[in-house]
């Protein structure tokens, strides 16, 4: 995969992410805020984007969605093999719900 292909893939992922996020927010805002881990302000902003704006935003060569697990503990839990999958997922969900949201500063 050369650099150009990679950029195209990133733009694709951005567009996919933004479209899914907007759809989720329009369907059920409160649940979307939880599932996406974003603040209410960002959710309102995404909700109000037009298709043209969405396309413009997604055409960045940088990934728009950032990794949600800043915490090494959560990441280790999701990938560890020592625990049963159901349990480690529950544990990760508890920790993720306790995390602060992404906000516009």
């Amino acid at each position: 995969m050369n650099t150009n292909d990679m950029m195209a893939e990133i733009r694709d992922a951005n567009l996919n992410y933004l479209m899914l996020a907007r759809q989720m927010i329009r369907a059920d805002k409160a649940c979307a805020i939880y599932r996406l881990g974003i603040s209410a302000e960002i959710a309102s902003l995404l909700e109000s984007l037009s298709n043209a704006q969405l396309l413009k935003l997604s055409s960045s060569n940088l990934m728009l969605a950032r990794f949600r697990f800043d915490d090494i503990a959560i990441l280790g839990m999701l990938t560890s093999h020592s625990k049963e999958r159901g349990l480690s997922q529950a544990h990760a969900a508890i920790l993720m719900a306790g995390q602060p949201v992404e906000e516009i500063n």
Partner: protein
Amino acid sequence: MASKSVLSEAREIGLATELIRLGARLQLLELETSLSRERLLKLYKELKGVSPPKGMLPFSTDWFITWQPNIHSSLFINIHRYLTTHAGVSGIEAVMKAYQLYLEQMPPAPTEEPLLSLTRAWTLVRFFDGRMLTTARCRECGGDFVTHSFSLSQDYACGLCHMPSRAGKGRKARAA
């Protein structure tokens, strides 16, 4: 109620229907909607085909402390807290939404009831409001877990970081 609005009654029936589908007991419905007991009874029978279970609601705070229920209720209360602080929902709506999200995370086996019922989840929120239960931060993973308000939680370790030796090894847990 001073004036009975048909529209608000329709809304209440919609809410009650949703709650019954999620498995609410009659006492919960009576407290969270303004519909009369007779109407709720009728609605319940129509939806479920059977009379609602009788008897008191579970009232013990200890259930939430035992190992497996503690994990489920901690997950629920974390979602509930997230929704009330970040998504701006409150009251019964927050309980309902958090419960749906909880079910997505912990889907029960096809033939089984979810471990944490809606009525229990609602009771849990009431226990938190009444400060009978609170959360403690685990010293290892940093997650918040349900504990008694009066228990000493200086050096708390959660049931997932420090699993009891036989936890999750039962016949039922294996099958799940």
